[in-house]
């Protein structure tokens, strides 16, 4: 699995994908930071993440759409599937590689925190910031797992990307349809973390969604062996 993580992270940064993802994310984060935090005179680092999680809904597909679709199209899937690696470790490897990119992004976004601390004249809102970062990783995990699942269904990257964005956007507005669909909406599950609460129910739901989609991906990959 370590070999796959290493290679995948390397591939993210050998191709423009990693830079485009981090660059566009930070560019838009800076925009939000200026618009909603800086100009309103707020020193809350966590409130910035209400916007950046929405951003994630549209940009996560960049990381996940090629994961299986591109490998299938190029035929390199053969190399992975005939190597002595289990499908589980292949899927987990790709999942963790995408997560590494997210964590790198998060580290970069700490600069906003530094700026706020500078203006506030000291370290502020530590607990809120930590819970927000944890929440951000959890929501990213569920998004990545879902994106990988969609990518495993097709060999067309564009279709995988568009389908991921569309479904994640729909999930955002699901609670408007019915209150009970709240648990299928990562972005709504996230709302408590910036308040400094690591809510058990929300965390468990996000982790469950992640595991569910990872399992579905593994099942799809395993089933495809029989269909090829």
């Amino acid at each position: 699995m370590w070999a796959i993580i290493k290679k995948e992270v390397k591939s993210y940064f050998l191709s423009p994908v990693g830079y485009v993802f981090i660059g566009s994310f930070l560019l838009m984060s800076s925009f939000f930071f200026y618009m909603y935090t800086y100009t309103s005179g707020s020193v809350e680092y966590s409130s910035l993440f209400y916007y950046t999680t929405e951003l994630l809904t549209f940009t996560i597909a960049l990381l996940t759409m090629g994961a299986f679709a591109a490998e299938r199209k190029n035929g390199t899937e053969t190399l992975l599937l005939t190597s002595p690696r289990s499908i589980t470790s292949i899927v987990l490897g790709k999942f963790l590689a995408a997560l590494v990119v997210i964590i790198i992004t998060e580290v970069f976004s700490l600069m906003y925190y530094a700026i706020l601390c500078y203006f506030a004249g000291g370290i502020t809102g530590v607990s809120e910031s930590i819970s927000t970062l944890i929440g951000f990783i959890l929501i990213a995990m569920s998004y990545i797992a879902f994106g990988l699942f969609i990518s495993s269904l097709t060999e067309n990257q564009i279709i995988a990307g568009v389908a991921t964005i569309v479904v994640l956007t729909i999930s955002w507005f699901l609670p408007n349809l019915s209150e009970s669909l709240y648990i299928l909406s990562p972005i709504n599950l996230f709302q408590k973390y910036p308040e400094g609460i690591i809510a058990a129910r929300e965390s468990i739901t996000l982790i469950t969604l992640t595991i569910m989609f990872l399992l579905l991906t593994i099942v799809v990959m395993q089933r495809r062996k029989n269909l090829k």
Partner: protein
Amino acid sequence: MIKVENVTKKYGSHTAIDNISFEIKEGEIVGFLGPNGAGKTTTMSIITGYIEPNSGHVEISGYNVSKKARKAKREIGYMPETTPLYNELTPKEFINYMAELKSVPRKERKAEVERVIKAVNIDDVQNKLIRNLSRGYRQRVSLAGALVGNPKVLILDEPTVGLDPKQVTQIRSLIKSLGKDHTVILSSHILSEVSQICEKVIIINKGKLVAIDTPENLEKKEAGENTLLVTVEDPEGKINDTVKAMANVRDIKLVKEIPDGTKQYSIFARGDKDIRKDIFANFAKCGITIFELKKAEISLEDAFIDLIDNQKEEKSKTKEEIKKEKQEQKEKNKKDKENKKAEKNKEKENKKKEKGGDK
């Protein structure tokens, strides 16, 4: 070493591989032959565990490929026909990644990668991007990916396609030398290549195993008889009588008349007797000049074409049989339906009667 048992693969109603069984021993170099679409690649994909067969199973060093996948796959180095590679990596990085995937220990990895790079002779491009490599280099990088980690079994799908003649001979001798301590399966449509490298040939056609034997045996089987080809100048037309007077000759046939006045005959000897000396002596006596005298050889090519043509005839027969079977089944189905209908009607009537009784 490799055991393929009753493997069948179907795509919908199309049967790609039909009940194939064979065994390959350690250290053998086996050639897979067959026309396009015969099922060579599918068979290889099943052996490597990339595709799951509908029925039957494959064992490698005693490990079932579908049940003990990791252990079985550790024994295999596979070079797919399409030579898939990661374009964003360099050959060195790619081979290193393949070594990692195959769990080559970290300490040995560097030396192993270098060994393989030397073996396939890609030192000069090892740090270029794979994206920019020509077909021949890609081919060799892909082969290197299969070789790394020194797996016991090498499965090479058309390893010499797209190489220039010098590279072809290089790769061929590489494969031959690998055959000393590896089991190699390679597919090819170049028959001379197979008869040069391989100790055993498996011919498949339309998903069925047609023949499995050494190239020499296949050629012999087809040659069958002890036949000579002679080209002579025979101004007096005595050849027929001369030959028929000889003891060990069964028959003579004119093959063609050549414009320079000579004629080519094929002479069929009795049994295994070598009659070349007799022919030379007798012909000289009768004033027949021999321009050429040779054994008629049948190449693997002839054997291959013959075997596949034979199978076609058989197939057409079986097709008719299949048609018959289908018709019979249709009739059966019809009867069954009728029977069911009759039963239903009976049931209905019974129910009606019961209802009538209730009333």
